[in-house]
């Protein structure tokens, strides 16, 4: 047992020295972790803040009230007050998604109790963006009507929150992005380390020695896991300090981060052992990462995406990882399964991946 531990420690040292010898790899690993976080948050920012011109041709108190209701109506809006000519030019140039015009007669028509038409010009290059703008308008108008106690309005929303606190879209995304980081960084580092050992034929050194394959693999994965964990720690720091996310369960957050790194390291080891070529490893990791990520409850709980997608999501370790991470950071239960079951599923994935990796590494030695 002691010799196995010595071999594992020696292999970990070797792998750390190798990585230290490839400084570009280390720097890019940390850079990659942060850029994936930025990528995901940019996705949220760009998707939720459609630039929309507001042309107030009236300027009266009712017009200003409607403008403030529009601004508060939906987080898809990023309202930019403009004059009609600038708005038309901006829409034509693709600088804004839509133009809402409050006509010059607005206050007078409201006072007279007449229906007012609000001209809406939309760049329908992207239907999703157009829908966001169209959905936001009625809610602003309802809010406006309630404030004026307009007699025709009969419907009012009584919101009952399931959770004690709201979670912003970007904070939700950044936490799920941490699982993406764990998968990409830990998976790639482990897969490349294992594949490179076969590719450069250096595996012969330990395969012709009395050292056990499990001890060597444990040491190698320990080293790549440690570096991955450091990269993830930097990203967690960005989420907390940069995005202002407050961690609800710090200990669970630490445990979840370590668990995610451990699991995706094991998955990477399997990929590396099975493919044996670094040139094949990297595209595969990147190729499977984003579909797994999107279908994991990364953008919203996966169960909101329909039964089929939700069931498919169960085949992905990222689904359970997002469940654990969102619980740790935001106290959110985004999977119907309890957290302990998510953790158990992740452990199952890790054991299966590690077993497959060892089988792949030992396959040629079958006697």
């Amino acid at each position, binding site marked *: 047992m002691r*010799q196995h531990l*010595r*071999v594992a*420690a*020696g*292999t970990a*040292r*070797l792998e750390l*020295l*190798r990585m230290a*010898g*490839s400084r570009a790899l280390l720097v890019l690993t940390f850079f990659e972790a942060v850029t994936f976080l930025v990528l995901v948050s940019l996705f949220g920012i760009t998707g939720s803040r459609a630039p929309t011109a507001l042309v107030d041709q009236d300027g009266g108190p009712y017009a200003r009230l409607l403008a403030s209701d529009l601004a508060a109506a939906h987080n898809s809006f990023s309202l930019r007050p403009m004059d009609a000519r600038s708005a038309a030019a901006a829409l034509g140039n693709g600088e804004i998604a839509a133009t809402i015009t409050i006509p010059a007669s607005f206050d007078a028509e409201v006072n007279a109790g007449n229906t007012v038409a609000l001209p809406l010009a939309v760049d329908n290059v992207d239907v999703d963006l157009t829908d966001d703008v169209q959905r936001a308008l009625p809610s602003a108008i309802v809010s406006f009507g309630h404030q004026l106690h307009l007699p025709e309005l009969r419907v009012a929303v009584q919101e009952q929150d399931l959770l004690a606190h709201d979670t912003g879209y970007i904070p939700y995304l950044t936490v799920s992005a941490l699982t993406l980081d764990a998968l990409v960084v830990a998976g790639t580092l482990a897969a490349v380390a294992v594949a490179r050992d076969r590719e*450069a*034929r*250096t*595996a*012969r*050194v*330990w*395969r*012709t*020695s*009395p*050292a056990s394959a499990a001890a*060597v693999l444990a040491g190698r994965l320990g080293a790549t896991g440690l570096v991955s964990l450091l990269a993830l720690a930097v990203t967690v720091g960005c989420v907390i300090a940069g995005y202002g996310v407050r961690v609800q369960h710090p200990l669970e957050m630490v445990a979840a981060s370590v668990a995610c790194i451990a699991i995706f390291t094991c998955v990477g080891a399997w990929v590396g052992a099975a493919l044996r070529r670094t040139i094949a490893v990297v595209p595969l990791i990147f190729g499977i990462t984003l579909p797994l990520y999107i279908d994991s409850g990364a953008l919203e709980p996966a169960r909101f995406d329909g039964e089929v997608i939700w069931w498919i999501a169960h085949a992905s370790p990222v689904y359970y990882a997002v469940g654990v991470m969102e619980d740790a950071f935001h106290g959110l239960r985004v999977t119907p399964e309890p957290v302990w079951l998510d953790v158990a599923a992740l452990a199952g994935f890790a054991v299966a991946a590690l077993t497959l990796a060892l089988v792949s590494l030992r396959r*040629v*030695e*079958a*006697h």
Partner: protein
Amino acid sequence: MGQAPGAAVRADSVTCHFGKLVALDGVCFAVPAGAVVGLLGPNGAGKTTITDVICGLLAPTAGEVTVFGHEVGRRHLREIRRLIGVVPQETALYDELSARENLHFAATLYGIASPLRRVDELLALVGLATRAGERCDRLSGGMRRRLVIARALVHAPRLLILDEPTLGVDVEARHEIWGHLRALRDGGTTVVLATNYLDEATALCDRVVVLRSGRVVADGTPGDLVSRAGRYVEVDCHPADVQRLAEALYRRRGVRLVEEEPSGVRVHVSGDDGAAEDVVTAAAALAALAGFRTRPPDLAEIFRTLE
């Protein structure tokens, strides 16, 4: 094949199939303890395959190999690997690491008690003490080969298996490596040397096992092999005399093969005493010779004769 007493390695009817490819076909040979035995053969003969089987990296389809009496298989693999050191064909060094770090890792794998001292001893042994801290990818080809030999010796193995240890190195480095191997032989280490080079086998080996297409085609001392392979006599003459000379010489005693050249003939004679001289005398009597040479066959010619 019977059990060779004191055999370090015994291969008994070893067969290896990779799909339809027969890499080894009933290979039998024994390596006496303390001997240097060469596995000689062209590329694809099965040299690396048989060394992989000896190391336990590859399971034979049929037959068995024993190393110091232990049957190579999962049951004894750890014990066997403690007894053997391997110098693979590719150097398999961690290029980003220094020579010292490469040896230190190997020492860890074998559980060496004082790894730092052992590493220093080995670096001194192969003349790399002054380059110990240098990254391996900055060492010359010869230095890398010496480092790999040092790595294989880290646990002082009783059997050293070398697969093309001088492949791609210059003449000086080659002779340095030969020097190390001779010192090991003198120290009692059993050596299995897979090589493409006849001169290497002749210079280092007590016995040579010649492989061709996965089969043993000869097994003996290098001297036996060379004498079995005979000699070549190259006779230069006028082009008009070539055909007549070839036909006449083919009937002479000890002649195995006559090849016509544009301005002469090449005659392969057996190793019998006087056969080469007889050919030259006969040729001189038949035609005006511009010159003649006798030489030992090269490796390709030897393999051809062993078919």
